[in-house]
């Protein structure tokens, strides 16, 4: 049974005023930890998991002699394996991620909050976390590490991300797959506005899944882009293709939100078909609230 989180989540605009990304990450994680019921990102420590019947070849050090005394049967204690998995956070820095909507933070900034919070959690759990970005080009910024000072480097790299370019995510995912050990975790944070409709992205994510990696795609979008709010203009252009202008009135076009929704629904289907987890996020939503909702949804699932 789940209960509603008691923490008042901080809206992105307020987080932005907190200052450095390290403080933001800590704040988000505090809110996150207060909101979740059980962390799915455990893996470190010597936590007991279950008993099983002893089998020949098992390490006798794990025999539960007390239970043998009571039941006269040999059981072996099993512990949750210390994960120490390798993870890569891949952040989209294409030009479209600079978009902020009315009065909000940019999508890149929001993606940085999410990346920082997740990195903070995973490094705290003993996992190795690396950072990659794509926009102007695919870049592996930091190799996965779990040492305590690595989080600082990672947050610094996140702070330095600058938007630009229109590179797709497929290339960087492939490069991450080459770099990372099998069975790792890849978290892609992007608006997923791919020129090919996400075909290459889904294929690359599928290739990672085929390697045994866990792939999560966190889609970041503003309310203006999703159609929940109407942008105040009459002539629009794609930041990744500025020469292309469209005179339009989204406020008077009910089909706009539907077309946006259909695009992402199709992409989500393609990703799910490949075993990739798809998480839609909105920049108007508090980061820790979004993470809590996601984690709780996973637990429910």
């Amino acid at each position, binding site marked *: 049974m789940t209960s509603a989180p008691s923490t008042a989540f901080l809206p992105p605009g307020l987080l932005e005023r907190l200052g450095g990304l390290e403080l933001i990450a800590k704040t988000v994680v505090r809110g996150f930890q207060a909101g979740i019921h059980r962390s799915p990102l455990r893996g470190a420590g010597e936590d007991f998991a279950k008993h099983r019947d002893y089998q020949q070849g098992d390490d006798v050090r794990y025999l539960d002699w007390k239970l043998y005394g009571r039941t006269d049967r040999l059981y072996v204690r099993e512990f949750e394996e210390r994960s120490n998995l390798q993870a890569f956070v891949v952040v989209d820095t294409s030009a*479209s991620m*600079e*978009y902020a909507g009315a009065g909000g933070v940019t999508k890149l900034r929001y993606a940085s909050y999410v990346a920082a919070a997740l990195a903070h959690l995973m490094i705290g759990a003993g996992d190795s976390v690396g950072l990659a970005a794509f926009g102007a080009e695919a870049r592996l910024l930091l190799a996965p590490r779990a040492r305590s000072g690595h989080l600082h480097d990672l947050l610094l790299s996140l702070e330095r991300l600058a938007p630009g370019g229109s590179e797709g995510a497929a290339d960087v995912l492939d490069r991450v797959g080459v770099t990372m050990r099998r069975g790792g975790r890849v978290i892609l944070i992007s*608006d997923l*506005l791919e020129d090919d409709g996400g075909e290459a992205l889904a294929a690359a994510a599928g290739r990672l899944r085929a390697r045994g990696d866990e792939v999560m795609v966190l889609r970041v*979008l503003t309310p*203006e*882009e*999703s159609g929940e709010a109407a*942008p*105040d*203009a*009459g*002539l*629009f*252009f*794609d*930041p*990744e293709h*500025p020469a*292309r*202008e*469209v*005179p*339009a*009135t*989204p406020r*008077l*076009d009910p*089909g*706009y939100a539907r*077309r*946006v929704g259909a*695009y992402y629904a199709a992409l989500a289907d393609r990703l799910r078909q490949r075993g990739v987890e798809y998480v839609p996020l909105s920049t108007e939503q508090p980061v820790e609230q979004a993470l809590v909702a996601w984690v709780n949804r996973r637990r429910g699932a």
Partner: protein
Amino acid sequence: MITFGTPAFLLAGALGALVPLALHLIRRRPPNRAPLPTERFLAPDPRTAVRVSRPTDLLLLALRMLLLVLAGAAFAHPVWFPAARGTREVVLLDTGTGMGAAWPQAVAEARRLLLGADGKPRGELVLFDTIAVPMRRLDARSFASLQATPPTGAESRYAAALEMIPAATRELRGADSVRVTLITRARWAAWSEGLSALRRAAWPGAIGLVSIPVPPATDSARGDTAAREAIRIAGDARTPVSYTRAALQATGWSVRDVPIADAVSVEGARLVVVEDAVPAPLAGAVRRGAEGGATVLVTAPAAASLRGLIPWRGTLRADSTGGAMWLASGEHIGRAAVRVSGDAAPGAALIASWEDGRPAAAARRMGRGCIVFAAADLERGEMTMDAAYPRVVDRFARGCESPGPADGDAPLDAGARAVLHGSGPAAVAASAIPGAGGGIALGRWVMAAALLAALAETFFAYSRRSAA
């Protein structure tokens, strides 16, 4: 009450104010351009390619309209009349030529206009002949005194009177209107002369005219040949050719030449023409003739011998500058051979001028007659060949006569008519001297307000542009 000297500018300003209004309403401009990463999902809507801007900048619009209206109003010469105290009167009373017989009637008219039933003055009285003098005190007694004083008989200069109007009206500030009345025996030629002075002065209104009818000639009736007998006294009286004699005869005079001698009688002659220096006994005879009612015309060569008699002052130095001689009626003759320097004596009426404006002939009453001095030799020079020569000599021969019908009947020129009808130079005059006629000119203040509006418009426009 505010009146406008040139209301067309006000109308132009009001119409001009519609221009920024129209521009604010109809200006089309491209719509705001904004990034949107999901642009690919938008349905193109060509209607939004241009945007009709609404008059959202109402403050700027109001300032721009105000600026144009104020500028138009400033150029329209607004005059504020602070209080309505009724119409005040300025009466210009001619004390000059020809007012003699009509003087009681003229003074009575002035009194009727200026003294109310309570005996209090309702305006200003200006007396004028060659100069204009405002009368300080206005009551029944002063009018009685004025009536008892005969007019000066000097030449009436309307210019002098009209130039006094601004000063007189300034004394009446506060009245909502001022009416000027000119009481004179109208001489339109002199009127046009005065009009130029009026154009330079300030007078926002019409001028009323009380024209005193020309009285019947008191001197001998014209056309009576017997009464138009002239004696010409000249050194060359025996010569057969005399231009003066010919001119006089051409204009109806019967001329008798008399040689210069000590004992010459001029009795019975209506005109005595002295063309050369005369001995003292003859000068005395000439004086007696004038006092007896004759007109004595003295020309330049005789001036020195009659110095004490002629209405002239100065050195009487003759030079050969010559020039054209103009009568007040506009008649003129050119190229005199000799010209005598000097000026008309006090009390003398100027009856001709040189083209440069200096006096050329003057007349003054003497006893029952008149002395006329022509500052030229009327027998010499090409002027004698001029077609107008006989008429000029005849005018001199008429001496102190009031202007003839030819002057009085001359038609008014357009400028004079405009003044009499209250249009024409009135508007121009209103701007020349602030407050004339009781009003206070507001043009410069309205212009200052327009400049303030312009500054405010610039400031707000700059602020808007910076904010954008």
